[in-house]
């Protein structure tokens, strides 16, 4: 795939899967996203980085229909190439389109087993209704078997087959992260949004996670959009990086381009005269988890 990189607008040309155009989102007086324009090529492993409160998770919530931006549009191009507007769609309908996500602090169904967690993801693509379920029709049982098989394959893929019957809450952190990815993959996404998958994992788990993300991208052909604070992980995985700060795109490009961008360095380390940068960060609710 040949893509040309335009560093100022954070967009590429070619076979686009998602196109964010001039999106602005504010909560009262707090501007979380300001005229954000970016897009992602099909199959690309793109990463969004930025300091805390930069609006990364806000962007994810806009992309998944949780938040509805006041201005701008987000177009998703499913396989057929027809554009579908995401703004105004409910989260489950966005998921149906083929956008799945994981959460910054993992939100597994804790009282269910790992297997059941994945199966719920798989089943969201099935058709059994209440009547079929109550009567346990042959078609229902067939779907049930298919769902079991697919959930088992996905657990295998993320390396959790042996822990299938353990409770999600009993799994160690790294395994929870992988389980969340398996659940998201269960919904057969074309675009997978990962919100800080490496947060709280140890170095060994981080390496496993990086391998898994690369396999999701290469073997399953799923386009991956990654929010991550761990620069090592981002630099080794991402083909392209977009940097957000105060809700604006301040830079984009290949990992090495971004690393040497003065704006990025300033955003992360703060300008010499303005060291206590943290205090000026707008209270971006979702990133702080204090909505």
């Amino acid at each position: 795939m040949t893509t040309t990189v335009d560093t100022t607008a954070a967009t590429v040309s070619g076979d686009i899967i998602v196109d964010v155009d001039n999106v602005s989102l504010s909560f009262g007086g707090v501007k979380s996203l300001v005229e954000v324009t970016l897009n992602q090529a099909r199959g690309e492993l793109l990463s969004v980085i930025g300091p805390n409160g930069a609006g990364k998770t806000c962007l994810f919530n806009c992309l998944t229909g949780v938040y509805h931006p006041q201005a701008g549009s987000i177009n998703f191009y499913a396989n057929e190439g027809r554009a579908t507007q995401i703004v105004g769609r409910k989260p489950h309908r966005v998921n149906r389109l083929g956008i799945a996500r994981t959460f910054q602090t993992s939100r597994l169904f804790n009282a269910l087993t790992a297997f059941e967690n994945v199966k719920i993801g798989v089943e969201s693509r099935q058709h059994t209704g209440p009547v079929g379920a109550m009567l346990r029709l042959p078609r229902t049982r067939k779907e049930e078997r298919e769902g079991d098989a697919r959930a088992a394959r996905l657990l295998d893929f993320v390396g959790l087959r042996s822990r299938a019957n353990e409770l999600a809450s009993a799994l160690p952190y790294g395994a929870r992260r992988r389980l969340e990815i398996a659940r998201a993959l269960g919904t057969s996404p074309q675009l997978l949004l990962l919100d800080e998958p490496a947060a709280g994992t140890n170095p060994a788990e981080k390496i496993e996670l990086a391998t898994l993300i690369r396999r999701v991208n290469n073997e399953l052909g799923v386009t991956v959009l990654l929010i991550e604070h761990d620069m090592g992980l981002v630099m080794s995985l991402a083909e392209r990086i977009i940097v957000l700060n105060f809700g604006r795109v301040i830079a984009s490009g290949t990992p090495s381009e971004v690393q040497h961008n003065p704006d990025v360095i300033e955003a992360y380390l703060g300008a010499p005269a303005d060291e206590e940068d943290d205090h000026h960060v707008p209270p971006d609710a979702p990133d702080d988890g204090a909505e």
Partner: protein
Amino acid sequence: MSAFAATAVSRVRSARQNVEIRRLFACVFGMLVLALMTGPSGSNSAPVSGFTGSLFHPRVLAFLALGVGLWAVITAQHRWGEAIKRTSNNVMTLPRRVMPDRRVRLFVYAAALAIAIILPLHVNAFWQDVLVDQIGIYVLLAIGLNVVVGYAGLLDLGYIAFYAIGAYSTAYWTGALPVHPPMVVNAFWAIPFAIATAMLAGVLIGAPTLRLRGDYLAIVTLGFGEIIQIVATNLQGVTGGAQGVIGIPHPSVNLLHIHYSWLIDPLPYYYLLLAFVVLALIAYSFLEHSRVGRAWTAIREDEVAAESTGINVLKYKILAFAIGASTSGFAGMLESSKISFIEPGDFTVQLSILILVLVIFGGMGSLLGAVLGAAVLQWFPWYLREHPLFGFQDQDLFIYLGAILVIMMIFRPEGMIPSRRRKREIGLAEHGVGTADAMSGSSSEIS
């Protein structure tokens, strides 16, 4: 050094004894209060007779014994809590361990069904009536509410409204109301109408209100229950008003070669009810372990995660509401045509609460729990009535139920026979993971 250790040990021991003695006083005092509250009331001529009658009466001994028993349970739990928990867990999981085999389980269910079929033949007419009006109907109602509260985690405080709708639509289609239907049908054929009307009402009330979360839904359903009762009272021209509706016919079947009529005898109603309860149990247990049931669990556990996993949250909530409502509607149909008389006073908010108590007592999300919880709690007052030692009076029923519920919530918050998932949720909440807020208070923040 050793003397010091000995005094330290004895000090710890005496502190514990102190606590235990205080606890004994609290238990006994609590039971005295209960005895006083549930005893006879005073009258104008003998104003203190309520006090003397309830405290200087042999029944107080039964209460004191209960208090001491409660204290013994609490103390035992504090001293040997872990051991007891382990044993009780062993006992509670016994059925699951003894019955891993499907065939054994089916056999046990068949035996239970056989008992349910044979039992009413061996009790007197009074108990047969109790079995239908007080136990059977409430078992069915509890099974229905279990879908709403237990599976989907929606707190419905107006559940009895659907029972009322089932009853009034039966009255309508059988021509007992002041307004007449396009065609009068027999009460038996009113079953589909009653179920459909209740289900429709469930969808209509559910569609706008199920967007609300947790507490708001409880308030709206509470209001809905009241509205139905008030409408039934005030819409005299349609519902017959406060005097109620008389002359709802008994059901009968005249189809091809089958001619059967239900009359005053409670037994046939019992079997009709039993058939529906068994059908509902089978259908709902299939439902629980299907795609639909797992979607409900997902919604209950984490609505935000469920949504972004592609589950249409609103649709599944309305579905649970509609299924619960239709079950309630059928119960309303059956009871109204058995008694052949309904009045708005039959559908008070207290009954909604009662059914909720039955579900919570039995174990939310557990079908077996709903059945046994309803059966035990509904049988209990009638049993007390037969034992004069407690001096049971009807108006005290809710005091007893409240006390049972409080004790239950302290010692066994997951209910008598908890569902495995529910039990885990409560266990996790105790360790600070997730919200076991049974009533779907799933937090709305997105991180």
